[in-house]
């Protein structure tokens, strides 16, 4: 089992070494699946590193998960040659949900960041046109349906 996961473990170790104490948590789930959690300051470095060192150029999407006090953002990257999926996660506080954009590194993030902004309410600083993507025009501002504390009564 372990010899099959050589590359995956190498990616994990490399990221750990590169990020130092900004590395929070990480594990290899199975062949081709690496999950890494980093601090808010380091997520962009980690993404850049994954792109430059491992050529994980395909940003599949950004998932936002409400974890109560914090909102977790997961950047799912794919490197097709070595069949490698790297997920880099970071947490932003719910009281001040702000994080820098990655659209300068991954242009495809333009759409995904708008989706996360719309549904879970994280502001991406530096995004050229951060506006509503999915919700209706008459939807109240500041109400984000994918947050756990969202209630149907908030929308008439």
């Amino acid at each position: 089992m372990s010899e099959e996961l050589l590359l995956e473990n190498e990616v994990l170790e490399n990221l750990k070494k590169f990020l130092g104490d900004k590395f929070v948590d990480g594990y290899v789930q199975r062949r081709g699946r690496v999950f890494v959690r980093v601090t808010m300051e380091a997520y962009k470095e980690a993404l850049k590193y994954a792109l430059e060192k491992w050529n994980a150029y395909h940003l599949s999407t950004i998932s936002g998960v409400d974890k109560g006090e914090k909102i977790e953002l997961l950047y799912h990257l794919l490197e097709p040659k070595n069949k490698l999926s790297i997920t880099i996660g970071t947490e932003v506080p719910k009281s001040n949900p702000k994080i820098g954009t990655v659209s300068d590194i991954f242009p495809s993030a333009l759409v995904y960041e708008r989706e996360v902004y719309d549904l879970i309410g994280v502001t991406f600083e530096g995004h050229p046109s951060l506006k509503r993507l999915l919700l209706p025009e008459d939807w109240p501002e500041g109400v984000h349906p994918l947050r756990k504390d969202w209630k149907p009564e908030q929308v008439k």
Partner: protein
Amino acid sequence: MAVLSKLVKWARIKSPWIIHYNSGGCNGCDIEVVAALTPRFDVERFGILLKGSPRHADVLVVTGPVTRQTKKRLVRIYNQMSDPKFVLAVGTCTMTGGVFRGGYGVVAGVDEVIPVDVFVPGCPPKPEAIIHGVVKLLEKLQKL
């Protein structure tokens, strides 16, 4: 005058023109509506013709649960049609909202927005069922 209205009625029954509107469905019903129009089922042999503009159509074929964003547009399309107009709702979603009932983006049911003449249940209904629904609608027209 009576002759003219008879002629209009005859024309309407022999060749109802339809417009197809998806009010937020999953596409399943839509491809079945199109399948009903293509060679294997071919409703065109009954004179049923798909039109692009609501102003030309007698029958509005609606698929999908009505979403918050399509609601206004559905009403607008309905209002643009000239009288007398009829609505054929295709699929379970149009009756109750189907699996999407309870979703924050769904109004649930076409009849909450515009009056419906015939419902065709199924997820999605087979083209045969859609044709059956059209026949039921034509029967209704006959009695007018």
